[in-house]
């Protein structure tokens, strides 16, 4: 079924557009003498031809367009409108500036009226070409209408009228379209239009005309019947019959003559029949019953043998609809009704070439300088007809133009496909990103789990409990060795602040509360050592360290920390302290025992010996004996003093009988006397009856500190003070000597310091040693006087 004359009129080619140009030169050796640049090395192409499609627009402006084509057309139109606006503005500006644009008059003499598409198309081409003129062009159009007014008398009347009409208003250029106007001009030019350049246009085959004077130039129409039939044979290789359809109008006949000439080539190959004198309906019947191996060549059909006139838009569809064979055509007017097409001439192009010539003449060139040229033909096909006759596009000549070509799916939707693919790609990238992100997050989560497990195992292995306390909610999250520390049979536990408080041994709560408050207020690390009561009522020692976290406003919001069970360490420390204390006690006891032994036994015996010596001496009357006995007694007393001194060194009995203050004062005095260093002792508020271990401890520290000062400080003055109150006793030994580096004391100093610390720690006291090189040393020991100390004092008092 032949497609109908179309609403959609698409010119398309996959090839760069074929340009038809007035400057083009005839192709050497071309039988058709086309002024065409054809890229023959490339196959048939489909590239949009906006300029040419413009032609179609003019003819079929009612047709709707393919969206993409429409877009392109709109773009081109917009560009054109822009250029036109620029051109109009350009034209107007001089006027606005007061310049006068010269007027040129162009007379277009047409063979037929505007009912014939040919006239309009050529006129359109002319106008397009002259649009670039620097002049204001005034067009005058006349129509000789030789189809309707074929009588020579009528034509003569017209001629006279036109001659008379333009007698006093000579045009600057006359353009003749068709053979009759050219003949009219050729015959009357010298007399009626002297000096007026004539540009002729034969969109169809030119008629015989006599020799033309030099003021004539123009375009000779061309048909390419041989090439079109050759192409038909290539597309339909089985073709054996060729039917040429044409009319009987003069130009129909002239074209038939040329066609016949060109088809001589195929006389041997084809059975050629000319249906030029057959009128419908016979013509249509004939066309409807053609053999299968037939092609139809539609030539000009302006009038049939019955005298009916046709335009191309009438005769084209009529023949195509009637024919059961493919119809080829020679001019672009016979396209787009179902004709396949062929090597066609374009009226609009011819018009443009002629317009261009007229423009050059108006610009000052002489007609004789512009050679007469032949019009161009173009391979142009109707895509729908090709499809109908199942002709493959690839068989078409390179550079062919395709009308009504439906865009392929790809062409129609490639932007959608492209955008879709872009979206898919984007989505793919996003999904890939998300997957990557998810994989990373899972890895991070796994790593976090591992880290948490490591932390938990570390905490558990370290017999610890870690906590995370939310200050705002009061929730306290614990994990770790909860069983060991609190007797909670779980790995994690969430309790409140009160829950923790209840687990702390009540006596230790103040320590914990103070440490927490201090850490929170001063933004310092939290550290506390305290006892907790497990669920089974046993008590554990805990060392806790933590840290507060604050909001940007400085409000504490969270507290993290870790608590370590130090019960065993505490037990060990206590054991160590106990052992140390026992060692010291044993040492002191042993010293005291020996000292007592010396004092109570040896000294007493010596005293008795002295008494007995006195009695023996008293009983004797010998003066020598008296003096000798006195000497012995003196030596006994001397031994007794030495023994006392030895006992005092081992264990000062003064501590026991005279108290710490007296013993200390005595010691200081002894040091002053024996070492020549002034040791100044002051005391205040020292309780009379101290616990023996306290007084022994402080006395030993005093001895060590004073002896160190004497040995190492080089000072000649040492201050010793012993101050007490109801709660504690403080011993200070200060010298203004050379001092020493605390981080690097001498071996003896170091041992002395260690010994002092140990002794003080046994009585739960503290010792502070301050020393700077050249500024001296100050040692301060504080010993608490606990209830037992006071109790012993009371008990002694009661006894």
């Amino acid at each position, binding site marked *: 079924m032949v497609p109908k004359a179309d609403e959609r009129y698409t010119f398309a080619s996959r090839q760069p557009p074929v340009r038809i140009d007035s400057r083009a030169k005839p192709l050497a050796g071309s039988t058709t003498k086309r002024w065409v640049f054809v890229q023959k090395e490339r196959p048939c192409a489909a590239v949009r031809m906006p300029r040419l499609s413009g032609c179609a627009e003019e003819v079929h402006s009612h047709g709707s367009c393919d969206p993409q084509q429409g877009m392109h057309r709109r773009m081109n139109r917009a560009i054109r409108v822009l250029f036109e606006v620029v051109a109009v503005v350009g034209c107007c500006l001089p006027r606005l500036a007061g310049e006068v644009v010269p007027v040129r008059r162009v007379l277009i003499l047409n063979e037929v009226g505007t009912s014939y598409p040919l006239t309009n198309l050529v006129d359109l081409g002319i106008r397009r070409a002259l649009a670039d003129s620097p002049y204001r062009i005034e067009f005058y159009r006349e129509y000789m209408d030789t189809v309707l007014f074929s009588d020579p008398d009528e034509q003569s009347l017209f001629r006279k009228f036109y001659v008379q009409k333009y007698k006093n208003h000579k045009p600057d250029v006359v353009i003749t379209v068709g053979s009759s106007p050219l003949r009219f001009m050729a015959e009357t030019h010298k007399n009626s239009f002297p000096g007026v350049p004539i540009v002729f246009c034969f969109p169809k085959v030119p008629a015989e005309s006599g020799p033309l004077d030099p003021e004539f130039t123009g375009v000779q129409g061309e048909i390419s019947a041989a090439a079109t039939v050759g192409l038909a044979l290539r597309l339909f290789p089985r073709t054996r019959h060729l039917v040429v359809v044409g009319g009987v109008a003069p130009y129909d006949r002239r074209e038939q003559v040329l066609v016949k000439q060109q088809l001589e080539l195929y006389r041997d190959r084809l059975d050629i029949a000319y249906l030029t004198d057959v009128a419908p309906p016979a013509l249509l019947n004939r066309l409807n019953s053609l053999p299968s191996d037939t092609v139809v060549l539609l030539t000009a059909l302006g009038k049939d043998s019955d005298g009916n006139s046709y335009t191309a838009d009438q005769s084209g569809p009529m023949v195509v609809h009637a024919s059961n064979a493919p119809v080829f055509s020679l001019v672009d007017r016979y396209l787009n009704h179902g004709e396949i097409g062929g090597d066609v001439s374009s009226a609009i192009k011819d018009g443009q070439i002629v317009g261009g010539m007229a423009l050059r003449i108006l610009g000052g060139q002489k007609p004789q300088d512009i050679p007469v040229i032949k019009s161009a033909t173009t391979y142009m096909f109707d895509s729908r007809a090709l499809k109908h006759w199942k002709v493959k596009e690839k068989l078409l000549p390179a550079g062919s133009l395709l009308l009504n070509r439906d865009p392929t799916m790809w062409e129609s939707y490639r932007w959608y496909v492209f955008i879709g693919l872009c979206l898919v790609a984007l989505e793919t990238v996003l999904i890939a990103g998300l997957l990557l992100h998810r994989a990373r997050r899972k890895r991070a989560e796994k790593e976090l789990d591992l880290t948490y497990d490591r932390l938990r195992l570390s905490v558990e292995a370290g017999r610890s409990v870690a906590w995370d306390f939310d200050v705002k909610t009061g929730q306290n999250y614990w994990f770790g060795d909860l069983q060991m520390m609190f007797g909670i049979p779980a790995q994690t536990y969430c309790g409140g602040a009160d829950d923790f408080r209840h687990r702390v041994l009540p006596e230790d709560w103040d320590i914990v509360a103070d440490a927490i408050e201090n850490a929170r207020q001063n933004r310092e690390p939290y550290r506390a050592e305290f006892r907790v009561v497990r669920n089974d009522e046993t008590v554990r020692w805990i060392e806790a360290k933590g840290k507060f976290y604050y909001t940007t406003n400085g409000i504490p919001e969270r507290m993290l920390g870790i608590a370590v069970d130090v019960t065993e360490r505490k037990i060990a420390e206590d054991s160590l302290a106990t052992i140390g204390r026992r060692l010291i006690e044993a040492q002191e006891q042993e010293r005291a025992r020996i000292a007592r032994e010396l004092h109570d036994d040896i*000294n*007493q015996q*010596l005293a*008795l010996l*002295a008494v007995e010596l006195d009695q023996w001496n008293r009983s004797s009357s010998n003066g020598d004996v008296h003096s000798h006995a006195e000497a012995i007694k003196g030596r006994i*007393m001397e031994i007794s003093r030495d023994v006392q001194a030895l006992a005092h060194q081992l264990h000062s009995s003064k501590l026991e*009988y005279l108290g710490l203050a*007296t013993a200390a*004062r005595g010691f200081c005095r002894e040091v002053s006397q024996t070492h020549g260093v002034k040791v100044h002792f002051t005391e205040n508020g020292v309780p009379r009856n101290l616990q023996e271990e306290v007084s022994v401890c402080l006395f030993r520290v005093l001895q060590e500190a004073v002896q160190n000062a004497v040995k190492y400080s080089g000072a000649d003055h040492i201050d010793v003070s012993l101050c007490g109150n109801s709660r504690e006793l403080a011993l200070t030994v200060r010298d203004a000597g050379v001092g020493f580096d605390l981080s690097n004391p001498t071996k003896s100093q170091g041992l002395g310091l260690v010994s002092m610390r140990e002794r003080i720690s046994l009585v739960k006291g503290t010792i502070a040693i301050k020393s700077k090189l050249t500024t001296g040393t100050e040692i301060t020991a504080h010993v608490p006087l606990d209830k037992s100390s006071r109790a012993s004092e009371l008990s002694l008092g009661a006894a």
Partner: protein
Amino acid sequence: MQKNTRRPRVLLADDFPQILEEVQKLLGNDFEIVGFAHDGGQALRLALTLNPDVLLLDISMPVLCGLEVARRLREAKCNAKIVFITVHEDHDYLDSAISVGASAYVLKGRIGTDLLPAIYAALEEPAPEQAVKLIYV
């Protein structure tokens, strides 16, 4: 010179028995020995119950030292004269003895010569010939 027919009553306190025997020999019949104490606590109790004129007191004794006994006797308003008999030659002991109200301080090595003069001095009575030397070291 004050005439006193009653013999001064003396309480002896020392944890060393040989010293007690030696002192008893030295005192002879001029003094009435009202008791012997072998530690500080016993000395304190006997002094308070027997109320002697003179208490011969050692410093180094079990339970309570002599200084503490003297301090408590003073606190208890006991008027017994206290004479320390000791081996301690240190001034700190002497000072402490004086501070707790001792009347005399005799070194044990010298009791053969110094004890009787010290007791008489404590009693504020003239000493016999042989008791002439009073020791305040």
